[in-house]
């Protein structure tokens, strides 16, 4: 297996990924536009590697290891999960190293010049909601990490493949039949996982940050009608601070940044059970 290094654009960052796994590089080329690959780049923010398992794992029940700057931060995974391992590993690298941003564990989408930020615990339905909205007129900024710029509170785009899990995969295949998906990786720690390519408009506007307009705490509930309710901004600020990866690192500046965002944004709780209804409710909010 011959290693190759690809330089891949991730929003404002460049990652240098070294790997001998041709299938993974091939899938990345389906999920990212050609313009995001920068052959021969002379600088990378993150140096990562996806390498085969060690010892007998090179031959039997093959594994893949993910390294950041030569360090292994995760247990190796079966080779069939190598692609999600790369995406999770890149998220880990960004969340752990890009402290020039306030990083919130949240999806972020834009419409009419304003960003809706969806913070949420795993399972709250933020990725599915985000995946649905970007196929109903919203621009993808991120499905996982909202990068808030310290200088002006705008959200920097990090449009990458959307991470879909379990039932969300089939749901999105029927909701957006033209979308491009990776092969599904089964039996991961999160169940079955597939990645969905970001819409072309989101990728083309990767250099356009936008200010937050709505902070929305989503909660998917089977059969629930789409319902937006006002939510207390002080409570929302504390909740989003808990969802931030590096809030404590930014100290008082982090608080002021969030306070500025909440002063200028609506704050809501959003329950939904159907993606079409959810998209209608969010479109009405954006149009108001």
């Amino acid at each position, binding site marked *: 297996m011959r290693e190759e290094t690809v330089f891949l654009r991730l929003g404002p960052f460049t990652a240098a990924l070294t790997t001998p796994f041709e299938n993974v590089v091939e899938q990345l080329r389906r999920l990212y536009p050609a313009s995001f690959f920068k052959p021969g780049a002379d600088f990378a923010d993150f140096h990562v590697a996806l390498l085969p398992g060690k010892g007998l794992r090179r031959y039997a029940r093959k594994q893949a290891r993910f390294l950041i700057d030569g360090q292994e931060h995760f247990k190796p995974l079966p080779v069939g999960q190598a692609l999600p391992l790369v995406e999770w590993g890149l998220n880990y690298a960004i969340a752990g190293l890009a402290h020039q941003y306030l990083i919130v564990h949240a999806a972020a989408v834009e419409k009419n010049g304003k960003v809706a930020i969806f913070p949420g615990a795993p399972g709250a339905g933020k990725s599915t909601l985000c995946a649905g909205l970007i196929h109903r007129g919203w621009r993808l900024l991120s499905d996982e990490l909202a990068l808030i710029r310290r200088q002006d509170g705008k959200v920097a785009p990090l449009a990458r493949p959307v991470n879909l899990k379990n039932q969300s995969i089939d749901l999105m295949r029927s909701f957006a039949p033209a979308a491009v998906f990776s092969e599904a990786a089964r039996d991961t720690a999160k169940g079955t996982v597939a990645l969905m390519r970001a819409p072309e408009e989101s990728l083309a506007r990767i250099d356009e940050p936008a200010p937050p307009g709505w902070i929305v705490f989503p909660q998917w509930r089977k059969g629930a009608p789409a319902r937006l309710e006002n939510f207390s901004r*002080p409570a929302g600020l504390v909740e989003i601070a808990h969802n931030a990866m590096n809030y404590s690192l930014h100290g008082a500046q982090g608080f002021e940044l969030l306070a500025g965002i909440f002063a200028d944004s609506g704050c809501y709780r959003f329950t939904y059970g159907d993606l079409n209804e959810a998209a209608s409710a969010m479109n009405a909010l954006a149009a108001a």
Partner: protein
Amino acid sequence: MTGTLTLSQNDAIEAGTWRLSPRVRWRLWDDEAVAYNDVSGDTHHFADFAAWVFARLCQKPESAAGLAREAKTSVELRSDETHDAVIGRTLELLWRLRLIEKAAA
């Protein structure tokens, strides 16, 4: 951290005037408050009566007695406790969180 703080005679809640600690940043929205303590790095959310007391201290330093006088005319309590008792308990909480301190006499 809060368990190491005890009220001395000089700190007695009823005595003197209370004010916000200088390293506290805050916002008041929708009758609620959010406060950031630059010393501890903690962010706190206050609703109901605690938010009312905090908001008063954001405006100006106040004594426990002054707060209780104002509360009696403008805040209805949900429990059977007296305004003085709830003011005392709230001030102690804010003090233990290092959000307020005694103003110089």
